[in-house]
């Protein structure tokens, strides 16, 4: 048995060596990550916008670095679905980025409560934004914690060639909207509305929260739910849910399992006339070279005040545990300047500046979207502010309930009653 024992001993030695080597590499890896290079400060920016990485790295950050020598900015993207989890675990583990991109409203409110951010009220950049713009990222007492970088709008994209061919004009009231849909359906060659119910958020954000504000009068209805003076079972909300469900006859077959990507394909291939979508997908909607226009959510009755969904999308805040606060603050100040805003919104068509300084948009469709804001009162999505901070969150709940309306024929009255009942189970109005 001598040979076996020798073999064993040799194996053991190799194994021990391998273990040591692995540990050694691990240590070397730790040491290698933190090399200082002269006086240069490197700050990191955590974000969920993986799709904008090239834009930030090639167009935005170099402009900042040019005017702020000695500061290097590293863009640190995580996929949007994993972003919240990543930020939470990195902060808990003490490895958070210096700058954190902020989710609007309740998620951010929880982060503020957990002490993730530094108070930004001392910054000059803050004065470049209205209180409404800052509100999505402010604490309960109105203290700003994030500098707003971009908002998104929602509306209806339409294929201008199909509209011209069928002699249709852009609808201004809901009645005209349904006439247009009927005409496209009667013609039979095109799907009137590229919409599916597989992605619940799609029904909520791009349909209900788009046409709904014209029914519940924007902020009046939204804040009414928050202070408890209004209920989802009030007629203006039931009507909005009903109007959403009235679109069902105009959807493609098998819409129950069509995802957001499918809708986009259907529209960009020229097979559907209208796509309810957010401004963030301008690039996607025009990718195949079809002529696309955009119209605002139609009003209920001719002459009504028009409301438009403007959703605060991204802000950037300062990690309270950052070791490079000075450099990070300089970056935040820069976010309030027109220099940043015009670079940013023009490199990223579909995202809109929330600052007080006017910005012009090179992309024609982005300008068209921005023009929809004229004469309209702006309002964010219905359920994200406060109403989604408990179980069940109204936002997630709305997605699910809208799906039951689209897939199982649940009535608007029942749907809104369910939502209000769930909301009442945990929410005490702030008013």
């Amino acid at each position, binding site marked *: *048995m001598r040979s076996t*024992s020798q073999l*064993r*001993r040799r194996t*053991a030695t190799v*194994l*021990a060596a391998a*273990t040591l080597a692995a540990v050694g590499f691990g240590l070397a890896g730790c040491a290698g990550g933190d090399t200082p290079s002269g006086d240069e400060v490197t700050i990191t920016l955590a974000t969920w916008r993986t799709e904008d990485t090239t834009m930030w790295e090639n167009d935005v950050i170099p402009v900042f670095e040019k005017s702020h020598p000695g500061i290097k900015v590293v863009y640190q993207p995580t996929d*949007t*679905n*994993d972003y*919240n*989890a990543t930020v*939470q675990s990195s902060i808990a583990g003490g490895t958070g980025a210096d700058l954190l991109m902020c*989710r609007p409203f*309740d*998620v951010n*409110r*929880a982060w503020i*409560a*957990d002490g993730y951010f530094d108070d930004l009220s001392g910054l000059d950049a803050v004065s470049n934004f209205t209180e409404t713009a800052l509100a999505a990222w402010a604490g309960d007492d109105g203290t700003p914690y994030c500098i707003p970088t971009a908002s998104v709008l929602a509306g209806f994209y339409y294929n201008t060639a199909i509209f011209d061919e069928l002699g249709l004009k852009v609808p201004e009231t809901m009645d005209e909207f349904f006439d247009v849909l009927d005409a496209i359906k009667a013609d039979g060659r095109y799907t009137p509305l590229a919409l*599916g*119910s*597989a*992605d*619940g*958020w799609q029904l909520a954000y791009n349909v209900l929260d788009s046409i709904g504000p014209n029914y519940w009068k924007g902020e009046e209805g939204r804040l009414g739910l928050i202070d408890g003076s209004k209920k989802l079972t009030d007629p203006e909300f039931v009507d909005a849910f009903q109007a959403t469900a009235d679109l069902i006859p105009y959807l*493609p*077959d*098998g*819409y*129950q*399992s*069509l*995802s957001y990507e*499918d809708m986009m*394909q*259907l529209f960009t291939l020229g097979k559907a006339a209208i796509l309810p979508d957010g401004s963030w997908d301008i690039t996607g909607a025009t990718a195949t070279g079809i002529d696309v226009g955009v119209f605002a959510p139609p009003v209920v009755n001719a002459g009504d005040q028009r409301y438009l969904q403007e959703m605060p999308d991204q802000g950037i805040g300062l990690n309270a545990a950052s070791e490079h606060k000075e450099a990070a603050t300089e970056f935040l100040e820069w976010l309030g300047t027109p220099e940043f805003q015009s670079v940013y919104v023009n490199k990223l068509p579909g995202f809109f500046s929330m600052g007080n300084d006017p910005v012009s948009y090179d992309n024609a469709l982005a300008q068209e979207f921005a023009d929809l804001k004229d004469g309209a009162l702006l309002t964010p999505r219905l*359920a*994200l502010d406060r109403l*989604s*901070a408990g*179980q*069940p*969150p109204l*936002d*997630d709940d709305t*997605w*699910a*309930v809208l*799906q*039951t309306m689209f*897939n*199982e024929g649940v009535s608007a009255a029942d749907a809104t009653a369910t939502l209000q009942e*769930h909301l009442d*189970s945990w929410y005490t109005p702030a008013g």
Partner: protein
Amino acid sequence: MIRTAARYRLLALFVLPALAVYVLFSVYPLLSSVALSFMRSREHTFAGLDNYVRLFTDPFVSERFGTALLNSLEFFLIHLVVEVPIGLLMAALLTSSVIRRSRGVYRTILFVPATLSVVIVGFVWRLIINPLWGLVSFPLLGDATTALPTISLMSVWQYVGIPMIFLYTALLAVPEEVVEAARIDGAGPWTLFWRIKFPLIAPQFGLIAILTYIWTFNGFDIVYALGGSAPGPNYATDILGTMFYRTFFGSSGQVADPDLGATIATVVFAIILATTAAYFVVLQRRIKTYEL
């Protein structure tokens, strides 16, 4: 032989690295997650059983948990009922003399899906069954009754190679003499398989069933890949894994609740532990193994 002391030292050397990794990355997180379920972490106070009471009595949370539990059970049963027989059939075909020449090719082809990324499997199948561009016009993923079975079958398609390999190796281990003896006694292929080979590989089924159970109750990836963290329609495909993820980490429309999330994780752990223990105590001991 090596002396006993030296032998133990040698054994320790082999065991320690794995044990260290296991304790650091499995035992410690597990225990700290159990600890978290008894806490109110925002206030850093001990919550006792409050989180558990909430999970089982809060009308909304308990309803979601009930749905997720039933869905996980369905997910497991579909795997068990579909995957194992197909795996057995494939293993039997692989060991049959008809394809002796190309056995390696078939074995590889049948096992390849198990090596694919779940995201790719989900994406490809979603296109195949897409009502707009795919083969079926019925919205399989959009209908609350068909969505979960559809996703389960995608997963079965992907992982059928695993029970197949288990059973295939067991079939290969059946001694040629026994088979030959049976043949001489006049057994046809059918009798040979069901009366000779099947009883010899039977203990494998218990193992496959319990592994499938553990794996499906910890399941998450394919559902998340197809439906995100609030898998619809109306939570029809929500399983324990996605409910845990959504609760613990939060989603775009939901604030994270790590305490309740840890409670769900602990309950799931307890369920799996209890079932697995019961299985080993009650069943595994009674399974007859034939002495050869």
